[in-house]
């Protein structure tokens, strides 16, 4: 401890920080700790049995696989959409820009039933896929569609500001040095945008893994086929198997925390690469 107390001009540090820590602990940290404490009641063998049961493992494969795929699809099309919104002018642009945030604002249950209606056999999109032998609703593919929907704004909104801030001089320099348009994109623009794109990908993935509301309506929830991991927690809870539900929640929480740290690192990288504030 230093001998002289640091002099602060502004008042309120103690009370505001104290309140922040108390509120955070009571509502978030202590209840989250309950998950780990409850899991600690199990022996490791019991825990391992629950979290590696075949039906649960099938749900990991579906949740993680579809979340990765959805995030990858969003990375590609989200980048294109952000590019179009920043670089081109076209009618309805402001409206489209505003609607990109729809998945943030639209309740997940609403998204779930709307997507199900679209992709059902007689739905607007489903009726065209049916003759091709592609079934989306009540199949694993339905999970993918729902996860693409909820993840899109994460990619667009992390990439868009970086594209807006790009100096035109960089591309002019590349062009005057003889670079083709594609080369300028590949070697000049992409390296600047890449950390943000990866951040958007990770955000979309993190959101997708935990998503529940929009998925359960369209997934069909067939054991071993189209059950997502959050649904396994609900299923265990409905059977009053609290320790089972908590054990699976522990696995998901550890993954979430890892992703959170990774995303923080990615955002620091973006900031360093582009000189923007986080």
């Amino acid at each position, binding site marked *: 401890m230093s001998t002289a107390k640091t002099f*602060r*001009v*502004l*008042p*309120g540090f103690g009370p*505001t920080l104290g*309140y*922040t820590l108390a509120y*955070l602990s009571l*509502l*978030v940290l*202590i*209840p989250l700790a*309950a*998950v780990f404490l*409850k899991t600690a009641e199990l022996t490791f063998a019991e825990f391992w049995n629950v979290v590696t049961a075949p039906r649960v493992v099938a749900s990991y494969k579906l949740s993680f696989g579809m979340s990765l795929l959805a995030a990858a699809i969003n990375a590609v099309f989200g980048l*294109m*959409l952000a*590019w179009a919104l*920043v*670089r081109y002018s*076209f009618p309805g642009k402001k409206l*489209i*820009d*505003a*609607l990109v*945030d*729809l998945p*943030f*604002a*639209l*309740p*997940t*249950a*609403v998204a779930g039933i*709307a997507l199900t*209606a*679209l992709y059902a056999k007689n739905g*607007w*999109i489903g009726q065209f896929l049916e003759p091709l032998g592609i079934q989306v609703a009540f199949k694993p593919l339905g999970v993918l569609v729902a996860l693409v929907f909820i993840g*899109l704004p994460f990619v667009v*909104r*992390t990439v*868009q*500001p970086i594209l807006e801030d790009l100096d035109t001089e960089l*591309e002019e320099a590349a062009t005057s040095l003889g670079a083709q*348009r594609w080369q300028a994109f590949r070697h000049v623009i992409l390296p600047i945008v890449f950390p943000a794109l990866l951040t958007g990908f990770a*955000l979309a993935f*993190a959101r997708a893994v*935990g*998503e*529940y509301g929009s998925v359960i309506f369209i997934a069909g929830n067939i054991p071993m086929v189209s059950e997502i991991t*959050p649904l396994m927690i*609900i299923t265990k*809870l409905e059977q009053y198997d*609290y320790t089972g539900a908590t054990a699976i*929640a522990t696995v998901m929480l550890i993954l*979430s925390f890892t992703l*959170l740290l990774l995303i923080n690192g990615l955002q620091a990288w973006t900031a360093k690469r582009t000189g923007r504030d*986080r």
Partner: protein
Amino acid sequence: MAGATTLRLGAAQAIGQTRFEARAATRETALVKWLILGTALTFFAVFLLMPLIAVFVEALRKGWETYASALVDPDALSALRLTLLAAAIALPLNLVFGVCAAWAIAKFEFRGKHFLITLIDLPFSVSPVIAGLIYVLVFGAQGWFGPWLAEHDVKIIFAVPGIVLATVFVTFPFIARELIPLMQAQGKEEEEAAVVLGANGLQTFWHVTLPNVKWGLLYGVILTNARAMGEFGAVSVVSGHIRGETNTLPLHVEILYNEYQFAAAFAVASLLALLALVTLGIKTWIEHRAAHAQHDLHEGQP
């Protein structure tokens, strides 16, 4: 995790500009441009626009009468009341927290600040289902306080307090995450000047800090409100689905849907979709205003 949801101050101006199209070096050939634009807009239409339109079309499929009767159904009305109540409690709680957290973090230096910000972000990265589960573990019949609560006849899980708690959890970081970067960017010279001139802490916040961050604060509030009214997973775990008592609007949508009352389910859903559209409308308006305020500031105009 909130990075993607924070207010974009330059957005309104950036959308209007054409600097990239004006120069040959930053322009694609017409073919490439239309290819990118066409793909992006098709993707947008299929994944965002069509679901939105589908909600309203399905809601009106059986006519206005069915639509109206679904909305004035007593169970729908009681779900609406509970949804409004949960938002009305969660919003001020997280508002006070957000302001306190932002003041401590943005205006003072202390160890572990980045760690604290990460902790505030935690609820964003936790599955909504787990957000419900944690309160079941603490307050449920099998939970830490379950026996004590039962003894004193207090119901939290499968009752309104549980729904409020779950709502507070899922909307926890929104306002704080909106305010922290804004207040950090603002610095603290203005506040220090106010204090030196004799203002107390609350006066300083009210007259100096608040006018600088009001748009960000408002954005945080509408985001919190939208999520609070629309939350499904977390609330579903703690609700118990008692009709007329512990059903919120999103849960009511699920019940109607599972009973094959599709038109009614979409009618209630259309109400929530309307809320989402209003939220996006206000957001766009805020971005517009904030951009103008910033523009005026740079031009040296009042």
